[in-house]
């Protein structure tokens, strides 16, 4: 089944509570997907720092002294904040691509979850509550975020098979459904130069959107493209640096419900994910139409 959630804040006063709100939304959908869970949070931008979220199965070994070695390798200051199996590497925005390559050269076992000016991505095998506790997601602040609890259908239950999938700077996507033409689309994207880390169908959808946006489309236009170019069942919820979008395939058998107030726009696979949000009783609540793109930007 999979459960997906998203929250895009309009009211700045809620920003300190983003992690807590998103965590509760995700936990409420635990029984839609017991295999793994993940969350992407868009925090406050910093002028002189960009971030890379990394993951290692052996954090004690891989994260030790990585900041020192990385700073030396790229010739710029680096800081690392470790959270369980994940760590957020911060360095100058101009050095991000170089840092990414250096991390993989220095620690070949490290996996890159995502990178960008604001996004941090945490995902692991296990139930949402365990994942949320492990990474202390409730304390995180931010402007918007998306989350996923996975029932695996198309690929293995692994950390890398968990959502969100991030294939471009500050871009990420969660998916409920299954794509039937992902192998073809993957081949086409590989020909364009995209790289894939898994056999997962959702990674293909994420890469498809990144490719469309790299060709100059905005998020809304890129989402429109999924309706003709991706085949199968999907409800996608996507985040960009300042945007939040939702689209369902034309058959729309995967569930979705949205709520909007003056304070936020929220998405849940089920209404119960939204019940703890402030002012939900007076929110505009609706089911997104099939084959219709919804998106908001700050």
């Amino acid at each position, binding site marked *: 089944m999979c459960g997906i959630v998203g929250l895009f804040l309009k009211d700045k006063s809620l920003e300190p509570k983003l992690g807590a709100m998103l965590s509760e939304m995700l936990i409420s959908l635990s029984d839609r997907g017991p295999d793994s869970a993940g969350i992407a949070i868009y925090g406050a931008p910093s002028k002189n720092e960009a971030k890379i979220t990394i993951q290692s199965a052996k954090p004690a070994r891989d994260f030790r002294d990585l900041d020192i070695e990385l700073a030396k390798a790229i010739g710029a200051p680096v800081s690392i904040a470790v959270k369980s199996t994940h760590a957020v590497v911060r360095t100058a925005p101009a050095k991000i691509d170089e840092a990414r390559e250096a991390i993989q050269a220095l620690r070949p076992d490290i996996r890159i979850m995502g990178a960008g000016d604001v996004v941090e991505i945490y995902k692991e095998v296990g139930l949402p509550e365990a994942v949320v506790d492990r990474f202390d997601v409730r304390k995180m602040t931010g402007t918007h975020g998306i989350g996923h609890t996975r029932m695996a259908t198309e690929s293995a239950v692994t950390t890398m098979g968990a959502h969100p999938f991030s294939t471009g700077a500050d871009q990420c996507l969660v998916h409920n459904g299954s794509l039937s033409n992902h192998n073809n689309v993957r081949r086409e994207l590989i020909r364009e130069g995209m790289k894939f880390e898994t056999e997962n169908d959702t990674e293909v959808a994420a890469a498809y959107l990144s490719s469309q946006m790299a060709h100059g489309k905005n998020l809304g236009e890129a989402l429109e493209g999924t309706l003709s170019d991706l085949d199968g069942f999907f409800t996608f919820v996507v985040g960009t640096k300042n945007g939040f979008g939702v689209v369902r395939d034309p058959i729309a058998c995967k569930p979705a419900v949205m709520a909007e107030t003056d304070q936020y726009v929220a998405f849940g696979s089920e*209404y119960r994910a*939204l019940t703890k949000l402030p002012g939900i009783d007076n929110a*505009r*609540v609706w*089911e997104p139409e099939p084959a219709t793109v919804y998106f908001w930007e700050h």
Partner: protein
Amino acid sequence: MPATKLSKAAAHDPASRIFDLDVSSLRELNQALHNLTPGSNETAWEVLHPKGSHSVAVGVDQPVSIDVRGSVGYYCGGMNSGSTITVHGSAGPGVGENMMSGSIIVKGDASQYAGATGKGGLLVIEGNASSRCGISMKGIDIVVHGNIGHMSAFMAQSGNLVVLGDAGDALGDSIYEARLFVRGKVDSLGADCIAKEMRPEHLELLQGLLDRAGVTGVKPSEFKRYGSARTLYNFNIDNADAY
């Protein structure tokens, strides 16, 4: 479809048996409802704080009334046999699925496949219903005050679907024998579904359904009737694309 605000909970009936799902479990509620026997005095029930829970009041088989104060998740009132369930909020997918008799009234909107496979009883949705409303209906009557989504009444076999608003694409795709009455526009008709003549017996039938659903100020003559062209009953190679 346009959104409707969730209905505010009305005042509680002092004589009713109250189940607060913040305090009791859903299993306790449904077990208590299943324990009801014919002639029980506990005829009025209230369910508080459903918060989108699944399977609220599923499988009730006594003629009691159940007021659910808030929105429910999947399959509310599924398999209902004889009870009157009112959801003072919106309903998730599969409300009243396989209902046998009795009635379910949803004050807000309903999600996908409302009343699917229902064999009897009346399902009223005062807001809008989503896609596949009345899919494979087998005798249930469904009245939707607002609009319905695409692929509604897909493979419908028996019963009546009344829509005061508009219908989405592929209404009545591969329909067998159900009667569909739509007052607004229909985006498109599915395979083997056609517009049909509204004869006096249909006007009378429709008036009865509108009365039972509490619809006033709307005339049966404002509706169009749709049903099966019956060309898919037997395999015909010329219809291969429509199967």
